[in-house]
């Protein structure tokens, strides 16, 4: 049997988890949920997902913090190549990430999607990232 693709969703909003689960479970994907940054990072290590869907504004660690830790901290170096799809509410977030990257950090997420999003948008973006990973 083919290995099932694992997607880790990190978001404090249970509605977003419902949406993400419904969208991906219509395909042969397994969705794992984490409700804050620390739980998310822990599940990255335990579950080794193929894709991370990450919210920006959460209580505790923000999505930026999580992404930065994942991409730069030696603790996660085996996982730093996992593509990250960021869900943002502010249109500026992407620009801010780009600027931080120029300041010498390799913390940029691979893709950004604005909330609210349509199911097809998310699916297409996620599959493009997963496709890149297989090559």
């Amino acid at each position, binding site marked *: 049997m083919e290995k099932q693709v694992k997607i880790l969703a990190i978001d404090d909003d249970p509605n977003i988890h*419902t949406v993400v689960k*419904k969208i991906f479970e219509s395909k042969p994907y397994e969705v794992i949920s984490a409700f804050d940054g620390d739980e998310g990072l822990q599940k990255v290590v335990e579950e080794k997902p193929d894709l991370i869907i990450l919210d920006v504004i959460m209580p505790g660690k923000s999505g930026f913090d999580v992404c930065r830790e994942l991409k730069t901290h030696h603790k996660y170096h085996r996982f730093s190549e996992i593509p990250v799809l960021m869900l943002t509410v*502010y249109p*500026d977030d992407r*620009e801010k990430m780009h600027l931080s990257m120029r300041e010498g950090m390799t913390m940029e997420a691979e893709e950004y999607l604005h*909330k*609210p999003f349509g199911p097809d948008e998310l699916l297409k973006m996620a599959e493009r990232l997963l496709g890149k990973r297989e090559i």
Partner: protein
Amino acid sequence: MDFVEGISRMSDLFGGLSDDDISKLLPLCREKVYQTGTVIFSEGDPCHTMYIVGSGKVAVEIKLHIGRTEETATIDTITRGGCLCCSGLIDPYILTATGRTLERTEAITLDVAEVRGLLEENCEIGYKMMGNLAKVVSSRFQNARETLSHVLSLIFHDFKAPLAAVDSVNRLILGGYVGELNEEQRDMFQSSSKRISTLLNLVTNVIDVTRASAKDLAMSTISLEQVIMDSIELMQPLAKEKGLQMKTELNHSLSPVYGAQDRLKQVLINLLSNAIKFTPSGGIVAVKAKDATDDIQVEVVDTGRGIPAEELPKIFDDFYRGLDLDERGAGLGLSIAKRIIEAHQGKIWAVSPCPGSDKGSQFVFTLPKAER
């Protein structure tokens, strides 16, 4: 007395006072030490004591009533030389904020009744101190405004996040991901989605207004030509749908500008969507850009019905919706555009009818060239 005298001399409240003036105030000063986290005074209480911070840090907090919850916002942090409780000099002598020490703080305290007594007898000192006081109050007021604007953007984020979640759920249902819908159900979900989108747009616009100051914008050296082409590409379908022709006149060697790409795109999209909205079928909407001496000038021109002279001065105001009530919107598009352009040190204005024509409107903005 050295500590007290040293602090008094650098206090913002006692600036400009002579040695003689200070020597009259010194006998009223007492030294006091507060541990971290102490509430020194509370909003709403009568003000009996004034403070001048000698060392440490005091947060000035105000209470905000948001719905049924009460939040605290820090409007200023006072350090060495800064004064607190100026309300003691202003009728009705009630504290307008709470002071909380952020670290161990040494302060000079002054009894308000004694200070007022001294000022009544020494009008010269009173005059100088009131001048200093006006400066302190004005700077606190400015800080309070900035804080409120920040708080507003946080509140609206709290509105936007659940709305966005509900809208995503609606789209999921409409996309057939949770089973097929019958026609009635589809109609109902579609109309509820539409209402939510309207609300989301309003909330997004309010957030944009509060986040349009220079420090909120992520700036870099960018090509304006790219911004213009992207915006046109985005608006082209809307123009086509309305039977409008879109034109561009770009000078292809436009100098780069230092700016926030997405926000400048937002300015152009706002201007273009207005132009499209107010131009009848068969008309033309054009974007022109050229290098001037120190800046780049961009124009959005249309052949639409133009803007009545009495409305022109008001169109960039917050929530101004125009006299035509058929064209509904939050009335924030142009005020967001103005704030974004001004945060870039640029200017924006409108002319109607278009120069050399008897109809249409021309919106112009300038952006300083990036330093090479």
